[in-house]
Protein backbone atom coordinates (compact mmCIF):
# COMPACT_ATOMS: atom_id res chain seq x y z
CA UNK A 1 0.00 0.00 0.00
CA UNK A 2 0.90 3.66 -0.28
CA UNK A 3 2.95 5.65 2.17
CA UNK A 4 1.28 6.81 5.35
CA UNK A 5 -0.46 10.14 4.56
CA UNK A 6 0.87 13.30 6.19
CA UNK A 7 -1.80 15.04 8.25
CA UNK A 8 -2.50 18.79 7.98
CA UNK A 9 -2.40 21.00 11.13
CA UNK A 10 -6.19 20.68 11.34
CA UNK A 11 -5.78 16.88 11.51
CA UNK A 12 -3.49 17.25 14.53
CA UNK A 13 -5.92 19.77 16.01
CA UNK A 14 -8.61 17.06 15.89
CA UNK A 15 -6.18 14.55 17.46
CA UNK A 16 -6.29 12.26 14.41
CA UNK A 17 -3.72 9.52 13.95
CA UNK A 18 -3.27 7.28 10.94
CA UNK A 19 -2.05 3.73 10.56
CA UNK A 20 -1.47 1.47 7.59
CA UNK A 21 -3.91 -1.35 7.08
CA UNK A 22 -4.27 -3.98 4.41
CA UNK A 23 -6.94 -2.01 2.60
CA UNK A 24 -5.30 1.39 2.90
CA UNK A 25 -4.87 4.00 5.62
CA UNK A 26 -7.08 3.84 8.70
CA UNK A 27 -7.77 7.12 10.50
CA UNK A 28 -8.56 7.29 14.19
CA UNK A 29 -9.94 10.27 16.12
CA UNK A 30 -10.10 9.88 19.91
CA UNK A 31 -13.02 11.40 21.80
CA UNK A 32 -12.20 14.59 23.70
CA UNK A 33 -13.54 17.97 24.62
CA UNK A 34 -12.30 19.59 21.41
CA UNK A 35 -14.44 17.27 19.26
CA UNK A 36 -17.55 17.40 21.45
CA UNK A 37 -20.79 18.84 20.15
CA UNK A 38 -23.73 18.70 22.50
CA UNK A 39 -22.68 17.15 25.81
CA UNK A 40 -21.62 13.47 25.49
CA UNK A 41 -21.83 13.46 21.68
CA UNK A 42 -19.34 13.89 18.89
CA UNK A 43 -19.59 17.19 16.98
CA UNK A 44 -20.86 16.88 13.39
CA UNK A 45 -18.24 19.34 12.17
CA UNK A 46 -15.39 17.37 13.74
CA UNK A 47 -16.81 14.19 12.20
CA UNK A 48 -17.03 15.87 8.79
CA UNK A 49 -13.42 17.02 9.30
CA UNK A 50 -12.31 13.44 9.99
CA UNK A 51 -14.11 12.17 6.86
CA UNK A 52 -12.48 14.85 4.71
CA UNK A 53 -9.04 14.13 6.10
CA UNK A 54 -9.57 10.41 5.42
CA UNK A 55 -10.74 11.14 1.86
CA UNK A 56 -7.85 13.49 1.03
CA UNK A 57 -5.24 11.33 2.81
CA UNK A 58 -6.35 8.17 1.01
CA UNK A 59 -6.34 9.95 -2.35
CA UNK A 60 -2.83 11.32 -1.70
CA UNK A 61 -1.67 7.80 -0.80
CA UNK A 62 -3.10 6.56 -4.11
CA UNK A 63 -1.22 9.33 -5.94
CA UNK A 64 2.10 8.72 -4.23
CA UNK A 65 5.01 8.63 -6.57
CA UNK A 66 3.54 11.29 -8.83
CA UNK A 67 5.85 14.26 -8.51
CA UNK A 68 4.27 17.67 -7.98
CA UNK A 69 0.70 16.41 -7.86
CA UNK A 70 -1.78 18.27 -5.66
CA UNK A 71 -5.50 17.97 -4.95
CA UNK A 72 -8.16 20.57 -4.29
CA UNK A 73 -11.63 19.84 -2.89
CA UNK A 74 -14.55 20.78 -5.15
CA UNK A 75 -17.32 19.67 -2.81
CA UNK A 76 -18.26 17.25 -0.09
CA UNK A 77 -21.61 15.81 0.98
CA UNK A 78 -21.80 14.36 4.47
CA UNK A 79 -24.60 12.08 5.67
CA UNK A 80 -24.95 11.78 9.43
CA UNK A 81 -26.49 8.42 10.35
CA UNK A 82 -26.01 7.96 14.07
CA UNK A 83 -24.90 10.20 16.90
CA UNK A 84 -21.20 9.67 17.68
CA UNK A 85 -20.62 8.67 21.30
CA UNK A 86 -17.75 9.21 23.74
CA UNK A 87 -15.28 6.78 22.18
CA UNK A 88 -12.74 6.51 19.35
CA UNK A 89 -14.06 7.18 15.86
CA UNK A 90 -12.49 5.46 12.84
CA UNK A 91 -12.60 6.45 9.20
CA UNK A 92 -11.42 4.88 5.96
CA UNK A 93 -11.88 6.01 2.38
CA UNK A 94 -12.09 4.46 -1.07
CA UNK A 95 -11.03 6.18 -4.26
CA UNK A 96 -13.98 5.30 -6.50
CA UNK A 97 -12.45 6.86 -9.58
CA UNK A 98 -9.13 8.51 -10.19
CA UNK A 99 -9.17 10.42 -13.46
CA UNK A 100 -6.66 12.77 -14.99
CA UNK A 101 -8.42 15.84 -13.57
CA UNK A 102 -11.10 14.65 -11.14
CA UNK A 103 -11.15 12.10 -8.33
CA UNK A 104 -14.29 10.76 -6.65
CA UNK A 105 -13.72 9.51 -3.12
CA UNK A 106 -16.06 7.95 -0.57
CA UNK A 107 -15.23 8.00 3.15
CA UNK A 108 -16.96 6.05 5.91
CA UNK A 109 -16.86 6.58 9.68
CA UNK A 110 -17.75 4.18 12.48
CA UNK A 111 -17.05 3.57 16.16
CA UNK A 112 -17.12 0.17 17.84
CA UNK A 113 -18.60 -1.74 14.91
CA UNK A 114 -17.44 -1.21 11.34
CA UNK A 115 -20.83 -2.38 10.05
CA UNK A 116 -22.62 0.35 12.02
CA UNK A 117 -21.66 3.51 10.19
CA UNK A 118 -22.12 6.79 12.00
CA UNK A 119 -21.47 8.97 8.93
CA UNK A 120 -20.36 8.87 5.32
CA UNK A 121 -19.03 11.43 2.88
CA UNK A 122 -18.74 11.69 -0.87
CA UNK A 123 -16.06 14.01 -2.03
CA UNK A 124 -15.15 15.38 -5.46
CA UNK A 125 -11.62 16.69 -5.83
CA UNK A 126 -9.60 18.27 -8.60
CA UNK A 127 -6.29 16.56 -9.28
CA UNK A 128 -3.59 18.92 -10.44
CA UNK A 129 -0.68 17.35 -12.19
CA UNK A 130 2.20 19.49 -13.41
CA UNK A 131 2.30 19.75 -17.20
CA UNK A 132 5.49 18.88 -19.01
CA UNK A 133 6.16 22.56 -19.64
CA UNK A 134 5.81 23.39 -15.96
CA UNK A 135 8.10 20.51 -15.09
CA UNK A 136 10.43 22.06 -17.68
Amino acid at each position, binding site marked *: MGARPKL*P*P*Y*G*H*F*LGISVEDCENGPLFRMPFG*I*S*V*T*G*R*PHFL*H*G*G*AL*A*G*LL*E*IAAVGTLMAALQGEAGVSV*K*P*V*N*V*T*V*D*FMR*GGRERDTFAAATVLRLGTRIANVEALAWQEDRDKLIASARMTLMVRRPTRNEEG
Partner: protein
Amino acid sequence: MTQRSHFNSGLTFDPALAAKTVSSFGHNGAIGARYIAHGEDWVELALDYRAELVGDEETGVLASGPIIALMDMATSLATWVRRGRFEPQATLDLRIDYLRAAVPERTVIGHGECYRLTRRIAFVRGIAHDGDPEDPIAHVAGTFMMTDAA
Protein backbone atom coordinates in the same frame (compact mmCIF):
# COMPACT_ATOMS: atom_id res chain seq x y z
CA MET B 1 -29.83 19.81 27.84
CA THR B 2 -30.75 22.04 30.77
CA GLN B 3 -28.16 24.66 29.85
CA ARG B 4 -29.79 25.09 26.46
CA SER B 5 -33.22 25.92 27.83
CA HIS B 6 -31.70 29.28 28.76
CA PHE B 7 -31.42 30.09 25.05
CA ASN B 8 -35.16 30.64 25.08
CA SER B 9 -35.07 33.89 27.00
CA GLY B 10 -38.63 35.00 27.59
CA LEU B 11 -40.71 34.05 24.57
CA THR B 12 -38.06 34.32 21.89
CA PHE B 13 -34.86 32.53 21.04
CA ASP B 14 -31.73 34.57 21.71
CA PRO B 15 -29.10 33.70 19.03
CA ALA B 16 -26.38 35.88 20.53
CA LEU B 17 -26.71 34.13 23.89
CA ALA B 18 -26.99 30.72 22.24
CA ALA B 19 -23.92 31.33 20.05
CA LYS B 20 -21.96 32.49 23.09
CA THR B 21 -22.98 29.45 25.14
CA VAL B 22 -22.43 26.94 22.32
CA SER B 23 -19.05 28.55 21.53
CA SER B 24 -17.85 28.22 25.10
CA PHE B 25 -17.76 24.45 24.90
CA GLY B 26 -16.49 21.49 22.91
CA HIS B 27 -15.59 21.64 19.23
CA ASN B 28 -17.35 24.97 18.65
CA GLY B 29 -15.31 26.40 21.50
CA ALA B 30 -12.13 24.86 20.11
CA ILE B 31 -12.55 26.45 16.67
CA GLY B 32 -13.67 29.72 18.32
CA ALA B 33 -16.67 30.86 16.26
CA ARG B 34 -18.39 34.02 17.51
CA TYR B 35 -21.76 35.70 16.96
CA ILE B 36 -21.98 38.66 14.58
CA ALA B 37 -25.63 39.32 13.68
CA HIS B 38 -29.00 37.73 12.96
CA GLY B 39 -32.34 38.38 11.24
CA GLU B 40 -35.71 36.62 11.10
CA ASP B 41 -34.34 33.48 9.51
CA TRP B 42 -30.58 33.89 9.41
CA VAL B 43 -27.56 34.03 11.70
CA GLU B 44 -24.06 35.24 10.95
CA LEU B 45 -20.96 33.98 12.77
CA ALA B 46 -17.25 34.73 12.43
CA LEU B 47 -14.28 32.41 12.55
CA ASP B 48 -10.90 34.06 13.08
CA TYR B 49 -7.89 32.69 11.24
CA ARG B 50 -5.69 30.37 13.29
CA ALA B 51 -2.64 28.40 12.18
CA GLU B 52 -3.85 25.19 13.82
CA LEU B 53 -6.96 25.19 11.61
CA VAL B 54 -4.89 25.13 8.43
CA GLY B 55 -5.47 22.33 5.91
CA ASP B 56 -2.53 22.98 3.63
CA GLU B 57 0.70 23.95 5.33
CA GLU B 58 2.37 25.13 2.12
CA THR B 59 -0.31 27.68 1.26
CA GLY B 60 -1.63 28.43 4.77
CA VAL B 61 -5.20 27.93 3.51
CA LEU B 62 -7.78 26.99 6.17
CA ALA B 63 -8.97 23.39 6.20
CA SER B 64 -12.49 22.80 5.03
CA GLY B 65 -13.46 21.08 8.31
CA PRO B 66 -13.64 24.27 10.43
CA ILE B 67 -15.72 25.89 7.67
CA ILE B 68 -18.17 22.96 7.81
CA ALA B 69 -18.33 23.29 11.61
CA LEU B 70 -18.91 27.06 11.30
CA MET B 71 -21.71 26.57 8.75
CA ASP B 72 -23.27 23.72 10.75
CA MET B 73 -23.46 26.08 13.72
CA ALA B 74 -24.69 29.13 11.76
CA THR B 75 -27.43 27.13 9.99
CA SER B 76 -28.46 25.40 13.27
CA LEU B 77 -28.88 28.76 14.99
CA ALA B 78 -30.84 29.99 11.95
CA THR B 79 -33.43 27.19 12.38
CA TRP B 80 -33.98 28.17 16.02
CA VAL B 81 -34.22 31.86 15.13
CA ARG B 82 -36.84 31.09 12.49
CA ARG B 83 -38.76 28.77 14.82
CA GLY B 84 -38.54 31.30 17.63
CA ARG B 85 -37.34 28.76 20.18
CA PHE B 86 -34.65 26.16 20.77
CA GLU B 87 -35.49 22.56 19.91
CA PRO B 88 -33.03 19.68 19.90
CA GLN B 89 -32.12 18.62 16.38
CA ALA B 90 -29.71 16.37 14.53
CA THR B 91 -27.92 17.16 11.26
CA LEU B 92 -29.12 14.73 8.58
CA ASP B 93 -26.82 15.87 5.82
CA LEU B 94 -24.71 18.80 4.81
CA ARG B 95 -23.25 19.51 1.40
CA ILE B 96 -20.56 22.09 0.89
CA ASP B 97 -19.25 23.49 -2.38
CA TYR B 98 -15.77 24.95 -2.12
CA LEU B 99 -15.97 27.91 -4.48
CA ARG B 100 -12.45 29.13 -3.83
CA ALA B 101 -9.77 28.91 -1.14
CA ALA B 102 -10.10 31.26 1.84
CA VAL B 103 -7.36 33.90 1.85
CA PRO B 104 -4.89 33.11 4.68
CA GLU B 105 -5.11 35.39 7.75
CA ARG B 106 -8.61 36.61 6.90
CA THR B 107 -11.59 36.10 9.24
CA VAL B 108 -14.25 33.86 7.69
CA ILE B 109 -17.89 34.95 8.00
CA GLY B 110 -20.54 32.21 7.96
CA HIS B 111 -24.06 33.28 6.96
CA GLY B 112 -26.62 30.53 7.66
CA GLU B 113 -30.27 30.73 6.59
CA CYS B 114 -33.27 28.49 7.33
CA TYR B 115 -35.40 28.83 4.19
CA ARG B 116 -38.03 26.20 4.97
CA LEU B 117 -39.22 24.81 8.26
CA THR B 118 -41.64 21.93 8.77
CA ARG B 119 -42.63 20.29 12.02
CA ARG B 120 -39.83 17.72 11.73
CA ILE B 121 -37.37 18.98 9.16
CA ALA B 122 -35.46 22.22 8.72
CA PHE B 123 -33.98 23.03 5.30
CA VAL B 124 -30.97 25.30 5.40
CA ARG B 125 -28.47 26.97 3.11
CA GLY B 126 -25.71 29.46 3.51
CA ILE B 127 -22.49 30.95 2.32
CA ALA B 128 -19.10 31.57 3.84
CA HIS B 129 -17.00 34.53 2.74
CA ASP B 130 -13.82 36.26 3.84
CA GLY B 131 -14.81 39.88 3.47
CA ASP B 132 -16.99 40.20 0.37
CA PRO B 133 -20.36 38.38 0.46
CA GLU B 134 -20.49 38.73 -3.35
CA ASP B 135 -17.34 36.63 -3.64
CA PRO B 136 -18.07 33.68 -1.33
CA ILE B 137 -15.56 30.93 -0.51
CA ALA B 138 -18.20 28.25 0.08
CA HIS B 139 -21.86 27.47 -0.40
CA VAL B 140 -23.71 24.98 1.83
CA ALA B 141 -27.08 23.21 1.78
CA GLY B 142 -28.35 20.83 4.42
CA THR B 143 -31.21 19.43 6.46
CA PHE B 144 -31.82 18.99 10.18
CA MET B 145 -34.33 16.72 11.90
CA MET B 146 -36.13 17.79 15.07
CA THR B 147 -35.36 14.93 17.42
CA ASP B 148 -38.19 15.67 19.87
CA ALA B 149 -40.97 16.13 17.28
CA ALA B 150 -43.78 13.61 17.60
